[in-house]
């Protein structure tokens, strides 16, 4: 185990009463200070994994340590070091934003005097100063999400867990939320572990990604390294219909993989398009072929998912429903008595 790992799991398994294997075998490590994306369709085991890492569920088998502490042996110490943002807002609507933050500080053992400057700072960072003394039940969806972040940060956690933090937000709301996350990471030096089923979210936000499906991690790596697995970028060059065939010339350009021609279009595969595009254009010029258009297509995580699992990402139970995401208390294991 690497001592600088913020989170480390080894063969983590969770089987619920009744035999549902929500998490079959998850081994991962998250480095200090990074934003780690845990991507997978609904029901893949993301929330169950987070619940084990945050001591809300006990692993059936395997080990997990968070902030260097074993989650089964030292649950209270782990809780002291982490902050949580759940899928649903868990702030008390009858209390103001500030009171919710004070409550959280108190639960982590902070005195009111310790809380005050910290809360003022976070309210400013999250643009909640004006709303701080209004009751949370009147907040908009985006404000509630920001407050959740602020509440989770009051006790200055080392690691922040975000479970589907942008579910239910519109595209602007989501983009705004990402900005706050990035700002937090820069200013507070916090490690972030986030689950999501939005591909664009991990592409734009995360340093490293793990893809989980049916309770198992099927791939881990950086955004780029995962995309390289499915052949990297594709550069498309449009040439006049009567141009001579220069496939061989293009193939000889350094950094180029496969080249194919489809009428007026050359498809040039390369691990990374940067640097290669200008070489390709120059090669065309040198061969006397005028380039009429250039475009670069980056592979999406959709394609990565398709390549790894053999099915399109969105076919797999993709919906926006919160109902299917059972929380620890509701439903799971004990029918609503």
């Amino acid at each position, binding site marked *: 185990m690497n001592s600088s790992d913020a989170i480390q799991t080894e063969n983590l398994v969770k089987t619920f009463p009744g035999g549902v294997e929500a998490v079959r075998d998850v081994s991962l490590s998250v480095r200090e200070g990074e934003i780690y994306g845990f991507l997978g369709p609904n029901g893949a085991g993301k929330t169950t994994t987070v619940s084990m890492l945050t001591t809300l569920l006990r692993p059936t088998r395997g080990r997990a340590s968070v902030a260097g502490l074993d989650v089964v042996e030292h649950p209270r110490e782990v809780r002291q070091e982490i902050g949580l943002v759940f899928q649903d807002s868990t702030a008390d609507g009858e209390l103001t934003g500030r009171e919710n933050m004070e409550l959280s500080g*108190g639960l982590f053992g902070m005195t009111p005097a310790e809380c005050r400057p910290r809360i003022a700072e976070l309210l400013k960072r999250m643009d909640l100063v004006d709303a701080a003394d209004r009751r949370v039940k009147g907040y908009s969806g985006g404000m509630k999400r920001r407050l959740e972040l602020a509440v989770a940060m009051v006790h200055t956690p080392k690691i922040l867990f975000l479970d589907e933090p942008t579910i239910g937000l519109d595209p602007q709301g989501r983009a705004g939320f990402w900005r706050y996350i990035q700002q937090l990471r820069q200013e507070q030096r916090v490690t972030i572990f986030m689950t999501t089923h939005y591909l664009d979210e991990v592409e734009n936000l995360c340093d490293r990604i793990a893809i989980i499906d049916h309770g198992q991690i099927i791939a881990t790596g950086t955004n780029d390294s995962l995309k390289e697995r499915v052949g990297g970028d594709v550069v498309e060059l449009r040439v006049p219909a009567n141009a001579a065939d220069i496939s061989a010339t293009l193939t000889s350009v350094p950094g180029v993989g496969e080249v194919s021609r489809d009428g007026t279009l050359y498809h040039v595969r390369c691990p990374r398009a940067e640097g290669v595009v200008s070489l390709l254009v120059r090669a065309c010029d040198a061969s006397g072929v005028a380039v009429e258009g250039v475009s670069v297509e980056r592979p999406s995580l959709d394609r990565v998912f398709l390549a790894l699992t053999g099915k399109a990402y969105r076919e797999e139970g993709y919906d926006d429903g919160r109902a299917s995401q059972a929380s620890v208390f509701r439903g799971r294991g004990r029918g*609503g008595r």
Partner: protein
Amino acid sequence: MFLPLRSLLKREYLRWVRAPTWIIAGLLTPILYLLLFGQAFNLGKLVPPDPRAQAGLSAALLGAPNYFSYFAVGMVGMVAVTSALFAGTGVIFDKQLGILQRTIATPVRRSTIFASSLIFRGLLVVLPIFIVLGLALAFAQIPGLAGLTVTQNLGAVGLIEVLVAIFVLAIAFTSLFLAFGFLFARVESYFAVVNLLNLPILFTSNALYPYGTSPTWLQNITAYNPISLAVNVMRENFFGGAYYPHPAYVYLGGLVLWAAALGVMALLLASRALRTK
């Protein structure tokens, strides 16, 4: 330990003061009971006014000088149950809203979460009890109104016995209903069970009318009902112990056992609900 408890109590308090309906209706209920039932059910009027008949009534009321005095003390038991009925609702809503999950994801001790509910909900039971007793005593000073007349000199020990009985009774019923809050996931299930228990608890006690005439099996149940025990402690201190087979502290001991048993049951159900699964 202290900071988390204070924070949880403050949250409960803020939720309470921001729900005026909850406060007003909660405090109005015992006052209405006293005014309506207490003034209307005047059993004394059914008895001829001659002194022997009235002495017979006083004996039937176990020494109370009139029915209102008897009833007003019983109201303490009734108010304890009706105020404690809601004790478990907060836990259920916190479960449904994810607030309980957020709370147990913090380092706060499970026993602190339980204690905060018991303390705050217990205070919401004690408060209307003191309003009832205060009003009933005040009524006695108003001509034309029936009121609670204390015929004995309580003394320090008597006063302490009465106060302890009130607090222990509040703990017993708060624990009982809080336990159901931790047990059930839905408000419907909670109130189905609470509704089932509510009136049997009240009517197997001697809170509202003397049980001298009821069948022996029912008298046996009545004798051990926690409301009867609390009410006996108070009536013996207020009206004298001539009609009671045991001194007040015996009943108080029984009540403490009830509260301990119900408190342990609630704590066990709470730790079951709050443990890591």
